[in-house]
């Protein structure tokens, strides 16, 4: 049996953000999220990673973009969701009701949360916040058709103002 000690299951063995105090973000974030100096010291590397996306994509990236879940199939749906309808989220995964026209059925919208688990991580790497792999989601209700007929959505990123769809894999910071 190997005598090598297992890595910590909590944090990465090599954490390049461990000494990063997020100084240029501290004042803004502290005020917005009611974080004291002690709170800042408690931030895990994972959360620092989450917050550091601003360095790559610009300080306003959370407001510059939005995520759209567009219905691409509605057969078998009993909630009234129709093909072509959309649900729009801001980058903080808040539903923008004023820009959405689909019924807010939680059985189809809940799976979309996974997009936002990836979006902060991808932003911290300077990538397009929406995954190019995991961008199709379907309703959580299987139905008698054994999942052949159910509502499905495709998720994409768009500019919050122009609504231009953004597919480039690496984004340029917006100045």
């Amino acid at each position: 049996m190997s005598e090598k000690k297992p890595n910590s299951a909590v944090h990465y063995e090599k954490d390049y953000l461990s000494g990063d105090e997020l100084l240029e973000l501290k004042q803004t974030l502290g005020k917005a999220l009611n974080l004291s100096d002690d709170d800042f010291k408690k931030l895990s590397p994972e959360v620092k990673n989450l917050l550091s996306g601003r360095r790559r994509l610009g300080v306003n990236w959370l407001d510059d973009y939005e995520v759209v879940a567009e219905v691409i199939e509605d057969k078998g749906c009993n909630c009234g969701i129709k093909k072509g309808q959309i649900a729009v989220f801001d980058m903080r995964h808040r539903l923008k009701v004023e820009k959405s026209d689909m019924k807010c059925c939680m059985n189809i919208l809940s799976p979309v949360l996974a997009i936002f688990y990836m979006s902060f991580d991808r932003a911290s790497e300077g990538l397009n916040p929406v995954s190019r792999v995991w961008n199709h989601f379907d309703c959580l209700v299987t139905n008698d058709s054994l999942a052949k007929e159910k509502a499905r959505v495709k998720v994409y990123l768009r500019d919050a103002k122009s609504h231009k769809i953004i597919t480039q894999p690496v984004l340029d910071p917006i100045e």
Partner: protein
Amino acid sequence: MAENLPKNLEIVATVTHSRHCANFISENETFVFDVNGCLLPEKSSANLCLGILARIQPALLNIQDRINEGIEPLPSSLKFLDCFDTGLDFGGMGKVTVELSVERT
């Protein structure tokens, strides 16, 4: 989806606790759903954060199932739910907790 569900019931998730929530969800704000599991934005007062809404979704199925069986809609074991963010002390950022209730309209 179950058929013939009563239309005069709504499921309400009331925020009982909020700490460092990046979406500024505050205590006593609400998320309101119909019995089919659809969010009713016009009746909800909280910011519609998917991090807590997705957490509530299985409970909506549970409540719908109980209504379908003709028993008390709210299961006693599923009164409180918290959001997917693990919170500042546990590797996350913020934490929101809600209490579920079923109300007649």
